[in-house]
């Protein structure tokens, strides 16, 4: 009999590999090139040649890394599909986590490329620094509905853990899950703190543009945080209700969604570039 669940799972794995290692790297690559050309070349015209050289060499490295990892991941999924086995001939859930870590490599490479790009701009920056005298707090970066979603997600997760402590299922970690929640929260709080206090952003000359860039990065982080919170709750309920086949679907869909959000977030909003060409 045709195993509908298993075959759909393989298609989902293929889709995840294509999305995370072809589509997402392409989007973040294009967005970075767009930023480097539209912002870098207009605000740092004396660095024009250096920026072009930098893009030429670093984007090739990025393409090789992303392409290589795509072939590797595709081969892993194809092997599992042909042999009707689980990923890595091991376990689908653990395999998905491995594919996730493989897919995160191009994102990290792009982050390193962007960091070095700012160092390049620093070499060409003049001695002027501009800042606003307006006070910026967390509330300027995170909207009220988002704060509400974060808090309700926390309560939902804690409530679910308390419920399953009283109605446990096999493999349930009990109150240790709350430690995981604290770890997740800490990661996102630290990331948001670093985005708010990033000195490298001083290289974005206009404080309003700097604010738009920070706001964009923080909203994406908060959105991923919210999605992660609700995914954790859902995953707990899927396990608790013994719907394990759906757990793989949910995990893969979550990875799809998270990577796509990262990709679309790498595009700065139009307001960032507003007036840039006119200034030039």
């Amino acid at each position, binding site marked *: 009999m045709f195993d509908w669940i298993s075959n759909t799972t393989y298609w989902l794995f293929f889709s995840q590999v294509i999305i995370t290692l072809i589509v997402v790297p392409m989007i973040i690559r294009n967005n970075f090139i767009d930023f480097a050309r539209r912002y870098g070349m207009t605000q740092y015209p004396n660095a024009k040649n250096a920026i072009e050289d930098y893009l030429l060499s670093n984007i090739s490295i990025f393409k090789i890394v992303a392409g290589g990892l795509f072939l590797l991941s595709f081969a892993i999924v194809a092997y599992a599909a042909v042999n009707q086995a689980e990923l890595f001939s091991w376990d689908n859930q653990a395999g998905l986590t491995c594919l996730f870590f493989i897919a995160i490599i191009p994102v990290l490479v792009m982050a390193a490329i962007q960091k070095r790009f700012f160092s390049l701009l620093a070499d060409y920056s003049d001695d002027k620094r*501009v800042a*606003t005298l307006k006070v910026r707090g967390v509330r300027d970066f995170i909207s009220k509905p988002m704060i509400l979603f974060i808090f309700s997600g926390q309560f939902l997760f804690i409530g679910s853990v308390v419920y399953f402590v009283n109605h446990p299922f096999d493999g349930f970690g009990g109150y240790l899950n709350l430690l995981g929640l604290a770890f997740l929260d800490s990661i996102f709080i630290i990331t948001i703190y670093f985005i708010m206090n990033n000195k490298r952003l*001083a290289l974005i000359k206009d404080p309003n543009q700097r604010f738009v860039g920070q706001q964009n990065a923080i909203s994406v982080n908060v959105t991923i945080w919210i999605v992660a919170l609700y995914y954790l709750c859902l995953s707990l309920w899927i396990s608790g209700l013994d719907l394990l086949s759906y757990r793989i679907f949910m995990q893969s869909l979550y990875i799809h969604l998270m990577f796509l959000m990262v990709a679309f977030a790498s595009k700065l909003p139009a307001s960032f570039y507003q007036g840039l060409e006119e200034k030039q």
Partner: protein
Amino acid sequence: MITIELDSPEPLFNQLIIQIKKAIEAKQLYAGDALPSIRQLANDLDINSKTVAKAYRLLERDKVIETKGYRGTYVHPNALDNVQFNLNGWLYSQVSFAVNSYREAGATDSEIRIAFNQAMTNTKK
């Protein structure tokens, strides 16, 4: 909006003081307005937070700004009047007046310097 020049011979903390005073004089900032935190300004300008802290400390001494503990830093209620006051200029005129009177009394420059140094050492805060 404030702008500082890293290569300017004017110390950075002084540039900050001048810019904040200018913003108050130009009525971009009013009495009671909140000012950015030391960390925010230091990050935005990519300078050491100690430089911003020094500028804020001197502005607070001149009663141009006031710090309200953890609530933050605000423009002083009398800031508009106090920005006009130039402590360094006042100090210079006072010292010049005193030096002239010592010279008229017959003191040499080196005697005046020695006396000043001794007075500064013996009248430590």
